[in-house]
């Protein structure tokens, strides 16, 4: 051991002394890779050195001392190399030093580089040598084997000798191997040897046993033969040689003592055998449980005591006053009811005498119900409002103070066959025009109810909308019938007025002629046929789809129409003076939803478009959307703008009447919901009275007082005034249109029952 260590030291010293190292692999005779070998050798040596260091650590104390000495003499290479030279790998390819004197048993040969090369004899491996039990292990460490693919070796053993690659099989062999797997084949390659790693017979056996969850030890017998120690056969000899203890056959004194104790107790009467405990506990013993007399605590907040049953009423008496007795009808009704639906579980009866009163059948059932209620019914505390219902009603100013407003039906305009769709009062306040399902336009004298003029426009299509031009000069009536818009000057005025109207209308023909050949306009302006012209129709505008609503601009030059069926050109603006039609919204996406109603702002260049759910306000001057109102209704049916322009009412088919303050918010300021059916039309009075109204399919018109204050801080005052009933409901339709008289607080309504009415 000591010798070996010295050799190591020495060789390390050598390695440190001179770097140019010789090749040691003379057997292979590959000079090219010598340089490489050097470094690897070197490293090997260091590794070996380290090994020896470890050895030192494990060596005993005495040897240690020697080692110390060795270390001390490390710098000077010691002379006695002889013994260390024994040390070497089995392959006898340890690296040698030329400078060192070769020992006697060292063969010297000339190396490939011409230098002498010492070949040391094989060293007999001794049992206690450090690498005896080390098998041929590859020392390359955790390096993939592929790195060595281009080399004939696959690594180095502990002595730095190359481990040669085992002869790999030919391609055919591999093929054969793959076809016929040898026994114990694993498909793995032994990293150390590079050969296929196969399992041996024993190993296979162990694996099999493990798979069967058996103990791998060969010597273990899981099923040994049973030795019947205790069998039916009576043995001659006892199994145990211990003698029978005395306690087995002598009565226990301890037990005797305890028994005697009990006996004594029984005799004295202290202990009662089978004491009648049951009897004692059966009778519940009562005592003064409230002896401490705690003051009554207030109940826990969450505790709800069970409500007491109400005391009986007169009708439960065995001899009630005769008025409480049910008559035949009530009796039958009670008997036919389901027992659960009955208000009371008994029917009042009368008996002449107490002895005639029978037992009550449902007594147990009633008590049982009460029991169930007590433990099954959830208890909820309900506050009973004990107030006069009248106090809930809001205080409203008396309608007498808000007069005038329409209260009674003054005139009924009869004549239309079928529904009257639309009604409009002329701006002078003398005439009222109506249009109906029978395809006629009629003009009536307001006060007398006389029909002064009638025009049959179409036989199959309804006149959906009639509107007078709002300016006092030129009495022009616009009517929508199907996809045509008729501009009519009814021949009921004096000649001058009539001519004035016709002039206004026909002035545009020249413009229309100039525009020939231009791209297709949304509406075509044309002269009506002779028959119609005779009746006063001056111009007809034809659009693509049915026009449902017409609204005039306040100056009377423009009118806007809605045809909801036309997706792209739902809203059309027509200019009377130039006979020009245009669609402000080319795309459907602009309005997002089918327009229902349109209206011009009474003073500003704004256009209000009501779609199904929203109201969009477009600035016509800037050509942009300025605001969107969200009334919250499902389907808007009509809108109207207050003559001052800051407020808006919206009627919807879901029965709501909404008041919007445009300055306040996009949400409605007030929602009134008192119609039984959907609202058809809403209208503000434009002649200076603070009135507005809504008409609905329930056949009523509700008139409201809607005052707006000039002070911006004060909200509008809305007071319901009157519900006007009179129109009959036909086919679920009631009042289809309403319009106010331009000057008086009079109201016109058009009903589905074929009449129009004046209310004043």
């Amino acid at each position, binding site marked *: 051991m000591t010798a070996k260590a010295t050799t190591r030291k020495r060789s390390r010293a050598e390695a440190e002394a001179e770097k140019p190292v010789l090749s040691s692999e003379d057997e292979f005779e590959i000079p090219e890779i010598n340089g490489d070998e050097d470094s690897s050798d070197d490293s090997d040596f260091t590794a070996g050195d380290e090994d020896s260091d470890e050895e030192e650590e494990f060596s005993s104390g005495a040897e240690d001392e020697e080692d110390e000495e060795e270390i001390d003499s490390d710098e000077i290479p010691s002379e006695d190399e002889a013994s260390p030279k024994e040390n070497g790998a089995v392959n006898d390819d340890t690296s040698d030093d030329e400078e060192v004197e070769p020992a006697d048993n060292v063969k010297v040969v000339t190396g490939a580089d011409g230098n002498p090369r010492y070949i040391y004899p094989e060293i007999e491996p001794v049992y206690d040598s450090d690498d005896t039990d080390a098998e041929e292990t590859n020392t390359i460490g955790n390096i993939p084997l592929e790195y060595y693919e281009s080399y004939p070796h696959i690594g180095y053993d502990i002595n730095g000798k190359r481990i040669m690659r085992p002869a790999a099989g030919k391609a055919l062999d591999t093929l054969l191997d793959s076809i016929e797997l040898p026994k114990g084949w694993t498909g793995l390659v032994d990293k150390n040897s590079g050969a296929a790693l196969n399992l041996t017979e024993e190993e296979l056996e162990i694996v099999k046993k493990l798979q069967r969850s058996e103990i791998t030890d060969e010597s273990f017998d899981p099923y040994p033969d049973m030795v019947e120690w205790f069998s039916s056969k009576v043995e001659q000899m006892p199994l145990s040689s211990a003698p029978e203890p005395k306690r087995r056959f002598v009565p226990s004194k301890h037990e005797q003592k305890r028994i005697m104790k009990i006996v004594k107790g029984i005799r004295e009467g202290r202990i009662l055998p089978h004491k009648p405990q049951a009897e004692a506990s*059966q009778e519940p013993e009562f005592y003064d*449980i*409230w002896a401490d007399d705690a003051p009554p605590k207030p109940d826990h907040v969450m505790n709800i005591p069970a409500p007491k049953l109400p005391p009986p009423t007169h009708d439960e008496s065995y001899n009630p006053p005769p008025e409480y007795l049910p008559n035949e009808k009530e009796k039958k009704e009670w008997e036919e009811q389901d027992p659960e639906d009955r208000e009371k579980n008994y029917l009042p009866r009368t008996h002449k005498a107490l002895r005639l*009163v*029978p037992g009550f059948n449902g007594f147990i059932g009633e008590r049982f119900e009460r029991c169930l209620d007590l433990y099954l019914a959830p208890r909820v505390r309900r506050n009973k409002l004990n107030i006069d219902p009248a106090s*809930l009603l809001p205080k409203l100013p008396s309608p007498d103070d808000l007069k005038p407003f329409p209260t009674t039906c003054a005139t009924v305009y009869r004549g239309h066959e079928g529904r009257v769709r639309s009604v409009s009062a002329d701006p002078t306040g003398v005439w009222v025009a109506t249009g109906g399902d029978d395809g006629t336009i009629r003009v009536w004298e307001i006060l007398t109810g006389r029909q002064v003029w009638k025009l049959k426009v179409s036989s199959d299509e309804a006149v959906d909308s009639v509107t007078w031009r709002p300016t006092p000069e030129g009495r022009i009536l616009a009517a929508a019938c199907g996809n045509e818009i008729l501009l009519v000057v009814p021949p009921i005025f004096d000649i001058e007025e009539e001519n004035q109207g016709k002039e206004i209308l026909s002035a545009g023909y020249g413009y229309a002629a100039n525009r020939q050949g231009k791209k297709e306009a949304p509406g075509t302006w044309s002269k009506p046929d002779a028959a119609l012209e005779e009746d006063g129709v001056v111009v007809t505008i034809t659009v693509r789809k049915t026009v449902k609503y017409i609204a005039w601009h306040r100056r009377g030059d423009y009118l806007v129409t809605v045809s909801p069926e036309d997706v792209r050109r739902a809203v059309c603006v027509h200019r009377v003076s130039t006979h020009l039609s245009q669609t402000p919204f080319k795309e459907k996406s602009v309005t997002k939803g089918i327009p229902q109603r349109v209206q011009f702002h009474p003073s500003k260049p704004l256009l209000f478009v009501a779609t199904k759910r929203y109201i969009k306000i477009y600035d016509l001057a800037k050509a942009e959307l300025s605001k969107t109102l969200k009334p919250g209704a499902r389907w808007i049916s009509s809108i109207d703008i207050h003559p001052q322009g800051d407020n808006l009412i919206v009627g919807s088919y879901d029965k709501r009447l909404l008041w919007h303050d445009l300055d306040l918010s996009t949400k409605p300021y007030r929602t009134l919901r008192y119609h039984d059916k959907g609202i058809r039309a809403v209208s503000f009075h434009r002649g200076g009275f603070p009135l507005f109204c809504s008409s609905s399919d329930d056949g009523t018109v509700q008139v409201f007082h809607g005052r707006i204050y000039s002070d911006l801080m004060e909200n509008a005052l809305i007071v319901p005034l009157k519900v006007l009933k009179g129109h009959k409901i036909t086919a679920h339709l009631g009042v289809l249109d309403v319009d106010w008289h331009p000057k008086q607080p009079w109201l016109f309504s058009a009903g589905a029952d074929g009449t129009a009415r004046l209310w004043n």
Partner: protein
Amino acid sequence: MGKIKKKGVAGNARNFITRTQAVRKLQISLPDFRRLCIFKGIYPREPRNKKKANKGSTAPVTFYYTKDIQYLLHEPVLQKFREHKTFSKKLSKALGRGDFSDAKRLEDLHKPRVKLDHIIKERYPAFTDAIRDLDDALSTVFLFANLPSNRDIPPQTIETCARLANEFQHYIIRKHALKKSFLSIKGIYYQATIQGQDVLWLVPYKFAQSVPRDVDFRIMLTFLDFYTTLLGFVLFRLYTLEGLVYPPKFDKKMDEMGAGLRAFSLESKKVGELENGTNGELVVKKDVSKQLETLGDKIKEIEEKGEEEEENNAVIPTTEEGEKVNEGLDKFTAIPSKDGATTDILEQPTEDLGGEGKTSNMFSEWTVYLSRETPREPLEFLLRSFGCKRIGWDAVLGEGSFTRDDRDPSITLQIVDRPPQVGLPPMPAGSEAQEGVNAGRGKVLGRLYAQPQYIWDCVNAGRVLRPDSYAQGAELPPHLSPWVKANEAEYDPTAPVEGDGESEEEEEEEEEDVKMLDNGQKKGVEAQDSEDEEWGGMNTELAGEGEDDSEEEEEEEEEDGGVELQESDAESEDDEVSRQLQHQRELEAEAKGVTVKDEKKSKKSEAKKKLDKEKKKREDEIERQKMMMTKKKRKLYERMEYGNKKKQDEKERLEGKRRKIEREKKKVKN
């Protein structure tokens, strides 16, 4: 921004627990849980937001408070349930083995028994709480006392119930606590005031009860368990406060002979006992000395007032003299104890002897005999609670009667419930009765005969009424519930018929104030009457009935022409229509040959028109106001209106019926 709140960790989700969860948490079976809930008085709750309480599910579930269930975890009764489970396993094992003696031993010695004392103290921390909750307990106990035992109901239970019921009745009799009673078609209602708390209970008539199939007697018996325990403790306390021994002596022999209440005999505690008992020593000592001072006065006072407390009911006086002697003795022994009791509950005995004392002893002068067709138990209870000492009845009705001889001359009132037998000569009192002819005997002279309702009506009226209308075979006046307080909105059967014989509907609103005045007058008259009524003075309930015939005719006319006016759009139209109607009416009247009082008619129609107009205006105004209400408020308003209208309709219905009946009566008279 605050921390994001996790769902289901606070609020409703935490506060409520479903029944299934509760049962799992307590690890008991559902029937056991039910028992536990009944004992502990735990009831389901309705969470404000069911969805939140049940993890977003809206399935119908029963919720309990988590805290309630939490408290149950440490309930000793729960532990008993578990013990019972193991016991039943042992028992079934023993039975399975055929080891019956072992089973018997187990049953006798090891059966866990649930004690409810702590629960009663816990549920009713104060004594008044317990009394307040006595209604259901008493009704159930009285019901079970009247049930036959069967497979579901053991006979011991019924015995216990009957005993408790009788003990309770004894207390009520002794304290004169009974206030009202009512004969209903379901049974007899009683109301007593105990310690200032009103207790109302219902006792069924003595008939075999029909048991519905869907009644689960396990539930009923669980309740009964609790109620009997509660009643036991309450009675113990009440008896102790009264200075009596609880339980009172019970004579089984007497009970078997049908003595009912008489089978019990109350014993008073001795003064020394009282001192050692529950009362504070000092107080009692003081009281005793005071008592001794005032003893003599009190004896006098009591004798004067005729308050005769019978302590030992087992002693039955047979003759008048004997009775007197007995009473004297009883009184003397009773007084100290009684006073002790009164001091205990801080109630002044003098208070009891005031105006109320008169009421509570209103039958004390009477000797009452019950005919064999009358219900003995309720009558005896009622009479005795109002001071009657001497009650006799037919031998058929059981033991314990004061006298069995219905010809006893001391009898002042006989309660009869059979129709009178005509043609039999009246018998003088005290004459020898011949055996076997009892039934065919006429009235005995020198006593009053009345039907049972008389007693009830006296009790409810709080004074002795004239027995005229309750005479044997007479048609009884209606028996009314004493708990219904007549108010404006409800129909009052005792009030005289309004506008009887006049055209009521038309003029109702118009003449409201007049009627009010009228009513006031009538009421005044009635009040006077009622003052006189005490044994003298006629019942003037039907005062103001007599009206002129002409008016009656008029009413008929009105009915003929009384076409309901239809509401039309315009008021002008209305007017026109009404005018036409008016005209038509006149024509019709002429055709009939009745002279129309033109002036009156026109006035009336005008007033009517005016009324209609006003009514319409009012309705319009309300409509208008409703328009401006929010939906929520409008709904509330409409609901309230609906409720009021229902009440009003009911009132009108009853009034209409009453009027009709009165009219028919009158016709019959004429």
